[in-house]
């Protein structure tokens, strides 16, 4: 009888621990960094030769996606003087780490070859250059679409990273 009771008790405690685990897991997630606005610096590709249309497409898509889903009150462009006086500003510097120019023709004909991929190191810093978050983000186009579609893929992923790690001070 006493043995049954202790077994039931241990079972109960185990269930409690298992039930409480997700709550602890949520708490252990790092808190989002408060940022009201973000300034996007032009994509840098000093080491890797990147066609100018890719560089511009990456930059424009990044700004568009950050405006759409980044969760910031304002997205400033490279050099925008209005960003100078903004409190809680985050600066995003992106450097191309890898680039493979695929071939749309090959993709359509073979469906397995001709993939375009681009890897970019994203560094979120404070205005004084202190690093807040660094992550490599890649963009790919495997089957359909032109090579520049890889830039759209990258921008969506980078905006998602920003959304996951930063939040507006007003809680939006």
């Amino acid at each position: 009888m006493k043995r049954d009771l202790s077994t039931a008790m241990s079972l109960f405690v185990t269930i409690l621990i298992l039930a409480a685990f997700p709550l602890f897991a949520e708490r252990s997630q790092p808190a989002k960094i408060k940022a009201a606005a973000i300034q996007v610096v032009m994509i840098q590709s000093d080491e890797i030769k990147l066609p100018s249309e890719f560089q511009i497409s990456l930059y424009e898509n990044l700004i568009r996606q950050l405006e759409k889903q980044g969760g910031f009150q304002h997205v400033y462009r490279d050099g925008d003087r209005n960003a100078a006086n903004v409190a809680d500003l985050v600066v995003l510097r992106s450097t191309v780490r890898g680039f493979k120019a695929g071939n749309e023709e090959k993709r359509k004909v073979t469906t397995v070859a001709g993939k375009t991929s681009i890897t970019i190191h994203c560094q979120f810093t404070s205005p004084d250059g202190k690093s807040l978050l660094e992550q490599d983000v890649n963009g790919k186009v495997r089957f359909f679409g032109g090579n520049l579609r890889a830039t759209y893929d990258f921008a969506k992923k980078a905006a998602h990273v920003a959304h996951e790690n930063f939040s507006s001070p007003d809680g939006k």
Partner: protein
Amino acid sequence: MSHRRRTFFFTAALVFAGMVVPTGNSQQTSGPVKVVHLTGLTGVKDDAKGTLSVENSKLRFVHGKEFFDLSATSIEDIVGGASSKQSVGKTVGAISMAAPYGGGRFLSLFRTKVDTLTVQYRDADGGLHGAIFTMPVGAADGIKKELLAQGAHTATTEQQTAPPASATNPPNKEQKQ
């Protein structure tokens, strides 16, 4: 006789070609050029078709009844390059992928060469923008030369001929009407 005649026709053809070719080149550089705006101009949809011209120190993109003016002096970098695009349209190309016996894939092999023109410019607040256009082969070089002649900058030329521009450049204007 026949030999002299042949020589005459050959010389005449050469003279005629000499007269026509420069005219053809000058037509590419002046007047509006049919382009596709891939991305970058504020308020203009991606893949919008229109014409691009350089007049009064401005790069003008006309799309339907609307136009977008960009001051040549606001352009920081301008790059022209060759590219290729699928001859059949996007929709037809996508639908044709379902065609039997790889017919759609066969269609995708037909490609047209195009020129790509990329322009980096600053708005009135100093914000950097980038725009990409595609146009018929040979047209990008003409537009680039005209813009450079009217005050636009390009990174490659500046590196070779002039010291880097100072950070106190006057703000440039971007207009859309």
